[in-house]
């Protein structure tokens, strides 16, 4: 065996990579529940790719055949139903895991120096994952697939001048049609999975360069023994490989439980209108996207002309408030100009335009997190009260937006969504202030 490894190592850095990234990769010894989700996300990526390959063996990316081919997979292909349910439930599981994974980054300050690139690559993964899920959802060519694609592609219509050309280019037709289905298949099955794998690789490379953060939010590299090994570090393998396996077992219990006993999630995981084939004349009466898009969808729906008036007032107040903030004069002036321009823009462009802009911004603000957070400490364990309250409000607002987005609009729900939209954006816009406000607890020098 050792002779064989020597032979390999002279030609390929197998042992070197094994040691650097597993056997001698030092990881904080205090990882908790929240640290399961990175490895689980990788597991689900593999599940999606494998089940996807087997679905592709029977699926037909043709508008006249697609719906029937999915029925065929469900009814006639041996174990086809299992492949499909593993894949459809896997998509939802992916988002549950990624949302929890991102939330961990938020509460432990993992996005901050020196892990900004880990976070930024993560955000690009999130956007790619949304594109992957959206395009996959068109493939069964159900009525919800069809109208969901119609709405989301139309979002690009609001871009001045370019919009109509761009939407035609995306659809490859003047309406969502066979051409659209065929290209979404190409993106969903090959282009985006390749991009995702490449991004996950970069995510891990960036993480291993700086090392993991941990629930205490302090650097284990600050305390090393004479050999340069962090005193509070343990080898990733075998300690965390084994711990992650426990996570995998629990994950499979939940995931397979859903796959076998509740595959449609009572209309949340597989929507009932999607059991009818695409009909270009009839929008489903209660059209909603899948649950993982609904928080952003609610923000889109919240944009009405009344709401824009309120936002104009808020930005006006913010513009004036900049003069009372204790900061450099040049900062004040540039902040004032930004707010003033925003207020003008809010009164020029209409609600449709701003709905799309707000939905996009709700994702863009995630990228800014490492620079918005000004707290002297990283982990929520030592942060000041205002931060904890803000996180609480943010979680409630985000879940409420998701809930509202799963139901048809009414006057009341529009107002609720508007309130939550304001809370969502305030969480980020006010972050530089409340993170610096209040008394933080003293941070230990070693892991607890």
């Amino acid at each position, binding site marked *: 065996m050792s002779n064989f490894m020597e032979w390999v190592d002279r030609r390929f850095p197998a042992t070197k990579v094994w040691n650097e990234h597993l056997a001698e990769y030092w990881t904080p010894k205090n990882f908790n529940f929240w640290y399961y989700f990175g490895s689980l996300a990788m597991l689900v990526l593999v599940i999606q790719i494998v089940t996807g390959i087997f679905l592709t063996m029977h699926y037909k990316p043709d508008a006249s055949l697609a719906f029937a081919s999915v029925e065929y997979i469900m009814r006639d292909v041996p174990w086809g139903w299992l492949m499909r349910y593993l894949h459809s439930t896997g998509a939802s599981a992916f988002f549950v895991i990624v949302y929890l994974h991102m939330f961990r980054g938020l509460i432990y300050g993992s996005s901050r120096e020196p892990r900004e690139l880990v976070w930024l690559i993560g955000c690009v993964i999130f956007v790619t994952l949304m594109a992957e899920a959206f395009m996959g959802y068109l493939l069964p060519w159900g009525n919800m697939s069809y109208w969901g694609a*119609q*709405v*989301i592609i139309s979002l690009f219509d609001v871009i001045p001048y370019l919009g109509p050309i761009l939407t035609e*280019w995306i659809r*490859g*037709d003047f309406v969502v*049609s066979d051409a659209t289905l065929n290209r979404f298949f190409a993106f969903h099955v090959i282009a985006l999975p390749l991009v995702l794998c490449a991004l996950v690789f970069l995510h891990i490379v960036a993480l291993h360069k700086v090392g993991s953060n941990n629930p205490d939010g302090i650097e284990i590299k600050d305390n090393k023994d004479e050999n340069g090994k962090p005193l509070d570090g343990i080898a990733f393998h075998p300690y965390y490989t084994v711990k992650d396996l426990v996570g995998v077992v629990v994950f499979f219990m939940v995931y397979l439980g859903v796959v076998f006993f509740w595959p449609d999630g009572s209309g949340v995981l597989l929507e009932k209108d999607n059991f009818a084939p695409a009909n*270009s004349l009839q*929008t489903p009466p209660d059209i909603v996207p899948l649950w993982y898009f609904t928080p952003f969808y609610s923000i889109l729906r919240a944009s009405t002309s009344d709401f824009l008036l309120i936002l104009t007032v808020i930005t006006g107040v913010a513009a004036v408030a900049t003069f009372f903030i204790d900061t450099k004069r040049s900062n004040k002036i540039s902040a004032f100009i930004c707010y003033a321009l925003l207020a003008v823009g809010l009164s020029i462009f209409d*609600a449709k335009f701003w709905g799309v802009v707000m939905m996009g911004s709700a994702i863009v603000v995630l990228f800014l997190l490492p620079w918005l957070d000004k707290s002297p400490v990283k982990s929520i364990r030592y942060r000041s009260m205002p931060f904890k309250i803000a996180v609480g409000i943010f979680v409630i607002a985000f879940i409420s937006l998701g809930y509202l987005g799963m139901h048809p609009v009414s006057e009341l729900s529009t107002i609720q969504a508007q309130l939550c939209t304001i809370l969502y954006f305030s969480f980020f816009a006010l972050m530089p202030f409340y993170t610096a406000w209040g008394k933080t607890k003293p941070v230990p020098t070693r892991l607890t």
Partner: protein
Amino acid sequence: MSSNEDSTNENRSRRRFITGLTSAAWAVGAGFSVTPFVLSMNPSARAKNAGAPVEFDFSKLQLGQMVKVEWRGQPVVVLRRTPEMMSGLSDVTNLLADPDSVGSVQPTYALNAARADTDRNDVLVMLSVCTHLGCSPVEKLAVGPDPEMGEDSKGGFFCPCHGSKFDLAGRVYKNVPANKNMDIPPYQFLNENVILIGDDSARVS
């Protein structure tokens, strides 16, 4: 790599110039090579040709009845409006965002409150495509209270996607996500019962 002679100023600026020139040539080449890939995603010749006008015999419709006809893959509403529906149009003017359809799309012969050919202005021929994000609004033809259209609805269309409301001429209400009235396609009457959607070339205007 760099011997002493190579790092003289003259050589360095020459090299920088040549590197710049080569990169620029590569960039232009890359631009040209990407173009066919990008353009291959545009609508194909087949997609462009599939736009034939469609005929519809609306004598099949009762007064106050509506159907959706498919034209270019999109739903077109054909509605025979009752006198009550027609008079309702002027009652809602104050609630509309663009009552005179100045910012909306329609042929000139339909640029009026009923948004229809004045010869037969009870017949509404309209693209049933919400001007927000393209869903097909649901018809709410009945006059009277409606959960979505409000207490004293005069009838109209309600978009299930994000709650836009339109009147029975497809004119959009204020304070909803959509910002324009729904489009009126070109159309003409072939005889007193048959309508041709998508073509108005025989019309004498």
